[in-house]
């Protein structure tokens, strides 16, 4: 416990002095006297990289602990016998906190359906879980501020709730592979309820090791690209293509985003460059949601349990939801 507390104190000390540290480095290296593009790029880089990595580490750690309280089994139990709309809301919110990996999408889908959870509610979960993940939210918060992060989470939730609700209303059960309904599993569980605080903290460490260990390189590359654009690419470079005046920019971004597959850490720096260089917020967010929320690999995995028309309907409805969100944001901002 002392060890964790110590680490957290150190974290706060570094995080809240980052700006000062960056300025010190900036002065020592003599960069502050250079008024060139590359100085602006490096200034941006030496401040942003540690900031984003620190934010990511603490949130992944905290989420790793929180997730030990939300096993898929518990989530399933919470969702059983819930009415359609309420179920969709609950499933979407739980999608944020329940541990999820797209490689487990199929067992999870079967586990839910087998427990009698309606198809629409199950899909609300499967939409929210990948789209609203802590890496995406933290990067948005770190790079664009809390408003953008809140907007992202809330629109993601609305899309998951409404898309799942519509799919539920359409009664598409016939497009689920019949063998899914034939499975009768014994639900003994793994007896993992007996975990103590130390186990939960260990889960936090494991999450940091797994996630930060995997995405740090994307962040450095991504922020690097962002820094370069910061110093060199003209401000309105993207305005013509992805600005508000182009009505087709939103659907096109979504269409391009679906086959692209990236984790949140890889895509956000790209979004950052797009925004900084004149793309509108709605278009950039729509692109990001399409890339991380709808992905070809997930479609291929889900093909094992869903028939093709169902996959098209699923992606179609979520895609339309993302496009509408994009337009709404372009109107507001």
């Amino acid at each position, binding site marked *: 416990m002392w060890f964790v507390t110590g680490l957290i104190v150190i974290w706060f000390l570094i995080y809240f002095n980052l700006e000062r540290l960056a300025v010190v480095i900036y002065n020592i290296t003599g960069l502050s006297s250079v008024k060139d593009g590359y100085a602006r790029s490096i200034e941006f880089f030496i401040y942003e990289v540690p900031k984003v990595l620190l934010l990511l580490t603490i949130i992944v750690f905290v989420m790793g602990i929180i997730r030990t309280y939300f096993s*898929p089994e518990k989530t399933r139990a919470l969702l059983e016998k819930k009415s359609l709309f309420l179920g969709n809301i609950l499933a979407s919110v739980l999608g944020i906190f329940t541990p999820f990996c797209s*490689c487990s999408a199929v067992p999870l889908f079967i586990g839910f359906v087998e427990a009698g959870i309606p198809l629409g509610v199950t899909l609300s979960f499967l939409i929210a879980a990948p789209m609203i993940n802590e890496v995406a939210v933290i990067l948005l918060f770190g790079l664009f501020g809390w408003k953008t992060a809140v907007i992202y989470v809330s629109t993601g939730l609305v899309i998951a709730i409404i898309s799942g609700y519509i799919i539920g209303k359409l009664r598409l059960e016939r497009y689920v592979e019949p063998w899914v309904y034939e499975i009768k599993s014994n639900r003994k569980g793994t007896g993992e309820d007996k975990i103590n605080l130390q186990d939960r903290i260990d889960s936090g460490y494991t999450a940091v090791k797994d996630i930060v260990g995997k995405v740090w390189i994307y962040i450095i590359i991504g922020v690097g690209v962002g820094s370069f654009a910061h110093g060199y690419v003209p401000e309105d470079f993207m305005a013509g293509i992805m600005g508000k005046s182009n009505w087709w920019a939103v659907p096109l971004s979504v269409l391009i985003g679906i086959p692209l597959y990236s984790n949140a850490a890889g895509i956000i720096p790209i979004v950052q460059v797009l925004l900084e260089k004149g793309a509108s917020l709605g278009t950039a967010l729509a692109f990001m949601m399409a890339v991380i929320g709808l992905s070809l690999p997930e479609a291929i995995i889900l093909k094992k349990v869903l028939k093709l028309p169902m996959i098209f309907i699923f992606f179609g409805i979520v895609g339309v939801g993302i496009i509408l969100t994009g337009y709404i944001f372009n109107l507001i901002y």
Partner: protein
Amino acid sequence: MVEVRVLGSGCARCKELEKMCYNVAAENNIDADIQKISDLKEIMSYGIMQTPGLVINGEMKISGKLPSATTLLNWMQEA
């Protein structure tokens, strides 16, 4: 003989768990029958919702994450 079943349809962690089982058994001279189960229907009959899953002598031990090598060794020796 310990009967070890690794449930998983091909994710990175599933392969890692299978490798771990072989290594732990070999390093500690445990006579183990290790098999990977990748058929979805069979995986689902164990009632797990996250892969990989680990079943030792018919008992579900863990799902969705990797055990530590020590824990894995304990499970195999207990069984």
